[in-house]
């Protein structure tokens, strides 16, 4: 598959059930309201060719976008959520978990592992919004923590691609505790002198924003992604005022100093590769006088 700037990238969405959608399926773009062929999106990283609206990627698609082909090694088998609280005593949580697992082929809302990008090894976590709106419960917290600890042990840079509708309410305060747990692991990773890059995608809100999404040494965001702690509806209701234009968009947060760069998906792979090199210790070959003069 031919990517942008003539660079060959691995085909996306191989592992995703969406790739099975027959050719000729059309959908309405949320950005420009035009009718677009699914195939046009598939060949354009799920970005609308008309207006540049970024449709969500599955974890599989995102991993393919950001790693060398075949390099991703998942950390463990993946954990599954349990209904520890017997939430509302109606069995609805475990039932919906099973349904969502079957529908998405995912065990929960995050996929974690180690990969290389242009040969640079790094640890990668990707959240998938299809799974309970990528809400953070015990599993997401534990997987991110394990990956961060593994990255610290193996002296790897860490990249987390975030998306989240908030906390996994069905796990009560245990889900809240995952914010602290992941932040603690990131403290140790930081203390080991290792870099962490957060890539914020649409939407990143709630407890994920108030923990690892905001803790990147470098924070990238996809265009127009909604990023915030409280959701816009809650803010509108609480303050009873109109929200400023573009409020909580990636561009708004770039203006307000949270985000380092807003990166269109077509450039994300190249920019991440560049950053990983910048954030790695410099090899002697790269800093000779000759190199500087060239």
């Amino acid at each position, binding site marked *: 598959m031919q990517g942008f700037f003539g660079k060959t990238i691995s085909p996306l969405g191989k592992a995703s059930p969406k790739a099975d959608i027959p050719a000729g399926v059309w959908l309405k773009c949320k950005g420009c309201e035009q009718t677009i062929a699914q195939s046009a999106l598939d060949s354009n990283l799920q970005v609308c060719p008309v207006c540049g609206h970024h449709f969500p990627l599955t974890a599989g698609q995102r991993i393919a976008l950001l790693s060398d082909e075949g390099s991703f090694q998942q950390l463990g088998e993946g954990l599954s959520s349990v209904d520890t609280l017997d939430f509302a005593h109606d069995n609805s949580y475990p039932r919906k978990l099973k349904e969502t697992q079957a529908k998405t082929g995912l065990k929960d809302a995050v996929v974690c592992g180690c990969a290389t990008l242009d040969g640079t090894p790094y640890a990668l976590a990707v959240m998938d919004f299809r799974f309970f709106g990528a809400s953070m419960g015990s599993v997401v917290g534990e997987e991110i923590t394990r990956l961060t600890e593994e990255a610290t042990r193996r002296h790897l840079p860490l990249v987390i691609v975030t998306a989240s509708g908030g906390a996994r309410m069905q796990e009560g305060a245990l889900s809240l505790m995952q914010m602290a747990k992941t932040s603690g692991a990131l403290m140790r990773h930081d203390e080991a002198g290792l870099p962490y890059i957060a890539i914020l995608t649409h939407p990143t809100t709630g407890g994920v924003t108030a923990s690892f999404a905001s803790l990147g040494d470098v924070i990238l965001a996809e265009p127009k992604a909604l990023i915030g702690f409280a959701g816009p509806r809650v803010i509108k209701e609480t303050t009873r005022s109109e929200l400023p234009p573009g409020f909580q968009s990636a561009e708004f947060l770039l203006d*307000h100093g949270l985000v380092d760069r807003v990166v269109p998906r077509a450039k994300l792979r190249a920019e991440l590769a560049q950053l990983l090199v910048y954030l790695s210790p410099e090899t002697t070959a790269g800093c000779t006088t000759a190199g500087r003069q060239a």
Partner: protein
Amino acid sequence: MAVHLEFEYPIIELEEKIVALHRYSKTHAVDLAQGMELLEQQLAATREKLFSGLTAWEKVQLARHPQRPYPQDYIQAIFSDYLELHGDRTYADDHAIVGGFAKLNGRKVMVIATQKGRNLKQNIDVNFGSAQPEGYRKALRLMKLADKVGCPIICLIDTPGAYPGIAAEERHIGEAIAINLREMFRLKVPVVCAITGEGGSGGALGLCVGNRVLIMQCGYYSVITPEGCAAILWRATDAVPKAADALKLTSTDLLKLGIVDEIVPEPVGGAHRDPKTAAQLLRDALCNNLAMLAAKSDDELRAERYERFRKLGQFSEG
């Protein structure tokens, strides 16, 4: 003016009866001691029964009781020589979170506390207990100062949550909380946190990364308010008590889950029925927990704080 919750009425009625009887016996010079004693016994029994049988939603209401002692009241009652320090050195001094040096039982501590108001004017000043990013940044500045000078940290928390406002988002309330979470793990001094009323989600957690996390008996600690949960999951306001129950947010539930380490008992009926005793019980708990941590090294304190949170979470492998 006294404010009473619906489920408190049986107690209030008995109390009023006793007062009336007392007045009658005085003005009419009759001895009603026997009747009074009976009523007192009935009152005590009713209080015990009501208090032990409270639903999760009733406990949330107690935690929000307008007459409940607030962190500022506990600072006054428990600590001496409180020297408040202001500002986040970046933008503002958020009155919803205060902090400063103080003495507890003769020993210096850094006390950091959320604030609630007793009237509209006070509540506007403290934003109804919901902090802006500056509150969390001030708190961290003070914690780092305490860390530098080897001073234990005590956080008292009673907040409905961080403020969901436009300016709060513009100045990155999520980032402010996140940084606190990460940096509190770095502290080398003992950190004891006590939720005295409402432990409202990330806004409470942003001050709650302690070696020991205590909660007062009627306090709650939740990822979302019961109202918010009911609105999202069941789209019905009458589902609020159901949501409160489902969230497992009461002190006893939280202790079982390992989310809190200790429940600080309250006087029968709740802290607002006897603030002095409540303060004494909280003071004892804080002193005991600080004493427990006093002999530990920097490394032990940090490692134990990490492990304390590291083990929280329930899932199945594979």
